Each structure stands twice: as structure tokens, then as C-alpha cells.
């Protein structure tokens, strides 16, 4: 444990939607270049927590956050510009959401936003990102075609490529396969495992098999609290908490 680097350090995090407390006293260390999975029943706060990590919750009206999240030791709610934060911490959403533009323009969107204009540089980034997202071979002949004209699984990998193009350090995935068929799901899972060589990945999933297949650490959420957090093997084989065991064995949720 001692040689692992902590990418995120979460301390005493509370989150309120107006009067409703959605997250309660979350404490968590998230390691670099690992896959951390958040599991738990609907409404347990796992997606909410994910969105506090890149401050997407700022967009929701009436949200109040207490406590601290440190990224490499820097307080993300105080000492870092939110724009900078989001280019370091990318996000892949539940529904594939490519823009209604060409595949090329989708992937080039982030680099362009951040001021890259040169065609040759963009070309390079687009190809590299699509290769990293394991979709280059499938779309290399139709980069100018609409990104919405391909299958859902391909769209999701294009979205991953779009996220990678910004060269983030962390990728947040919010149930990235819940709208996909089993084959596409496996492709995304393989991709996640490959990507952890270079990136820190945090994935929210409803699918417990998915968490056990790909993640190094798992956190089990229930009603806004982290019930148990540890090595995935340990969580699934020898859960310490009764509630974790009940959830994992399918007794509720």
C-alpha cells in the first residue's frame, strides 16, 4: 500500500441538493493508474460523488459542497480553476453523447477549445486518440461522417476518444456501458483496462460483474455514505460489512 500514489484525497465531503443531503462524510483515497469502481443501488450518491470530482455538480442549481477534495494535493474547490480541472479530469457519460458533427470534429473539439488550430497537429491528436480508444480501424475511412451515424458502442468509444484528446490525467466514467449491448460493453471494459496504464480511471457502474472484472478498488455506496471501500477482490470475496455482503449477493438493490 505504501508505494501507491494517491491521486485524489477526499476528506469529510458532504453534498446537499438544497435541503437534501446526498453525500455524507465521504473519506476516500483514490490511487493513480488504477480503476476504482463505485457500486451501489440507484440514488445512493455514487454518480453525484463522481460529478463532484470534476465539479460538474456546479451546474446544478442549489448544490452545496462541504469538505475537501484534493487532486495531487491541490484543493479542487478552492485552488484550481474549474476549466483547468475539467481538462485534467475528463468525463464519459452514461448515454453516448457525441456532438452532431463529424467524427473528426468531435475528437478535435477539446484540442480546438484549448487553442490548437494547426491542421497537422489536430490530425495527429485525432488519430492518436481514436487509436487509444480502440476505434480507429472502424472509423478511419469515415472521419468526415456524422458521429451520430455509427452504432451506440462506437459512439461511446468516440466519446472516450474525445475525452482522451484533451490529454486528461483522470477519466471519470458514469455508467458508460448501461446503454450498450454486451459486446460493446466488453469492448469498453477491455479499453478501460488498457487505459489504466496511463490514466487514473473512476467508473460508476450498476453492473457488479463489471466492477469485479475490471476494477482494482471498489467502493460500495448506500444512501449517500461509503459503506465499504477496499481492494475489489476483498470487497467481493470477503466483505467486512453485512450491507455490502447483502448487496453483492443480490439480496437488495
Amino acid at each position, binding site marked *: 500500500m505504501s508505494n501507491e500514489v494517491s491521486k485524489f484525497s477526499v476528506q469529510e465531503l458532504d453534498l446537499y441538493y438544497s435541503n437534501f443531503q446526498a453525500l455524507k462524510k465521504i473519506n476516500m483515497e483514490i490511487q493513480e493508474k488504477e480503476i476504482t469502481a463505485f457500486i451501489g443501488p440507484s440514488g445512493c450518491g455514487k454518480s453525484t460523488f463522481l460529478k463532484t470530482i*470534476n465539479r*460538474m455538480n456546479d*451546474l446544478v442549481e442549489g448544490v452545496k459542497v462541504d469538505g475537501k477534495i484534493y487532486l495531487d494535493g491541490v484543493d479542487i474547490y478552492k485552488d484550481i480553476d474549474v*476549466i*483547468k*480541472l*475539467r*481538462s485534467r479530469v*475528463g*468525463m464519459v*457519460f452514461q*448515454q453516448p*453523447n*457525441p*456532438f*452532431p*458533427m463529424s467524427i473528426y470534429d468531435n475528437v478535435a*473539439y*477539446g484540442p*480546438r*477549445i*484549448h487553442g490548437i488550430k494547426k491542421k497537422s497537429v489536430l490530425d495527429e491528436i485525432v488519430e492518436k486518440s481514436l487509436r487509444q480508444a480502440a476505434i480507429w480501424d472502424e472509423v478511419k475511412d469515415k472521419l468526415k461522417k*456524422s458521429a*451520430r451515424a455509427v452504432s451506440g458502442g462506437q459512439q461511446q468509444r468516440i*466519446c472516450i476518444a*474525445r*475525452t482522451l484528446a*484533451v490529454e486528461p490525467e483522470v477519466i471519470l466514467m458514469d455508467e458508460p456501458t448501461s446503454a450498450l449491448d454486451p459486446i460493446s460493453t466488453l469492448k469498453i471494459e477491455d479499453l478501460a483496462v488498457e487505459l489504466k496504464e496511463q490514466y487514473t480511471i473512476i467508473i460508476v457502474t450498476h453492473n457488479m460483474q463489471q466492477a469485479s472484472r475490471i476494477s482494482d478498488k471498489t467502493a460500495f455506496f448506500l444512501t449517500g455514505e461509503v459503506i465499504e471501500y477496499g481492494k475489489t477482490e476483498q470487497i467481493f470475496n470477503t466483505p467486512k460489512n453485512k450491507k455490502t455482503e447483502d448487496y453483492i449477493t443480490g439480496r437488495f438493490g
Partner: protein
Amino acid sequence: MTNNIKEENNNSSIMMKPNKTRDIIEKIVETIFFLCAMVSVVSVIAIIVFVFYKGVAPFVGNNAYSFFDFISGVKWDPNHNEYGVFYMIVASILATIGAIIIGVPIGLLTAVFIAEIAPKSLVNIVKPGVELLAGIPSVIYGAFGLGVIVPLINKISPEPQGQSLLAVICVLTIMILPTIISLSEATLKAVPNSYREASLGLGASKTQTIFRAVIPAAKSGILSATVLGIGRAIGETMAVMMIAGNPIGGIPMSIWDKVRPLTTNIAMEMSYASGRHQEMLFATGVILFAFIMIVNITLIKITSKAGEK
């Protein structure tokens, strides 16, 4: 159990009996719907036939007026049998282009403000304002133009009068704003939130998100709004008539020049015209009609393309 099934069978056999009165009522109602729908269709056909019949008359038969002279002439002088509408076509097109160039950016940015940026309290002021603007009769716009805009232009214009292309553009710009704003706003609102999230998630600022993700996604709706604005501007008569100056000839060379759009030509003279003069006014209507048709076909093309996506 068996009893239940029997009962159900009985029920359904009652239901199966034809209901004559209901069928007749249905037929009558359908006919009423059909007749209502026909009112518009018959009207548009009647108008087209009538305008074309009257408008084509001066160019056929003996003593026909040269259509080329009509379409390319730059002088309208019924007393001397001179009917040239080219300078009016130019005036209509320039006035419309001017209004679109100024009105679309203002309208689009207003729509963005309402849909994306403004807090609710401000939306509650801006939106009713826009809606009210749409409801003001065009004669009032004309009066406003004559009372306020024309004198202002008069002060800075090198020409002796304030009635000018610029005055027309100013008033048309204001008049097309409600169309542009409300349609653009509706399409911006219809852009899925997931695009905004995706853009912000990539580290884009709010402004970048609006201009690079949201507006491109609403492109076809904004284009439709623009085309409808063109339709409104090119067809506007009353307001324009009061501020255009309406000269009897001459292509406008600057924004300070007087202009005579196609619409005002018809409106000013129709009430007293007769014979060839009247037919020529209908011919002007045919030209106007052609423009409106082009606008409408463009609109249909745009909206059907958007539907394919």
C-alpha cells in the same frame, strides 16, 4: 371462471353491433375537418391564379408590354406608360439583406441570452418584451420609423430627406427580431443538455460551449428562423411605405437614397389604378410572389434536411 368468460363474450357481442348514428356523426365530423383544411388550399390556389392571370395579361396579346423592359426598367411612370421594376427588386433585396445582416446576430444573441444565460427574473422581462414586439401592428412600426428614425437619419444624411434605404433597414430589423428570437430560442432550448455537459466536461467555458456546441447543434433551426425573417422582411408593406421615400425611378446607390420596394409600389397605387396600370401592379405582385416562393422552398428544404438527421 367459465361464467366470467361467457359474460365477456356476451359483452363483446354487444359491442360488435354496428352503431349507425355514431358512424354518421364520424362521417360528418370528418367532412367538417376536410372542408376547414380546404379553405387554406383553395385560397392559396385562388390567389395564385388571380394574381398570375392579371399579372401576365400586359405581356401577351397585341399591344403587349415587353417583359424585358418591365423586369429591367429603372423607371415607374404610369402616366408615360413606363413600367420598370428592376430598381424596386434591388430595393427589396437590399432592404431584406440589410435587415438580416443586422437582425439575425442581434436576434440570435438575444435568444442565446434568454435560453442559456439570463436568470429567470430577467427572462421574465425580456421574453414578454419580445412577444409584445411581435404583436405591434406594422402601421405603428411605420409611424415610429417616420417619427423617430427618419428625423434621426435626416440629421446625419448627406441627402435632403430622411426617408431612405437605411430607415427601411432599421425598421425591418426591429420587425424581424421577434421571429428570429422566438424561433432561435425554441431550437436552442431543444438542444439536449448532454451536449452542454460534454462540452463543459472537456474543459470548455460557458461561452465556448454556447458558440461551439450549442449553436452548431441548433444550426438548422436558426437557419429556418433566418429564412422566415427574410420572408417577413421582403413582404412587409405598411411600415416600409411610410419611410422608404418611394421615388419613381433610380437604383439606390447608397443607404441614404430613397427606395421603392415591390410591396409599397402595389400598396400605394392599387386603390386608384385601372387598366394597364393596374395589371402592371399585379405583375409586380407576381415578382413578389416568386420571391416568397423561393423563400418557402428554401425553408422546406432546410427543415426536411434537419428531419433526416
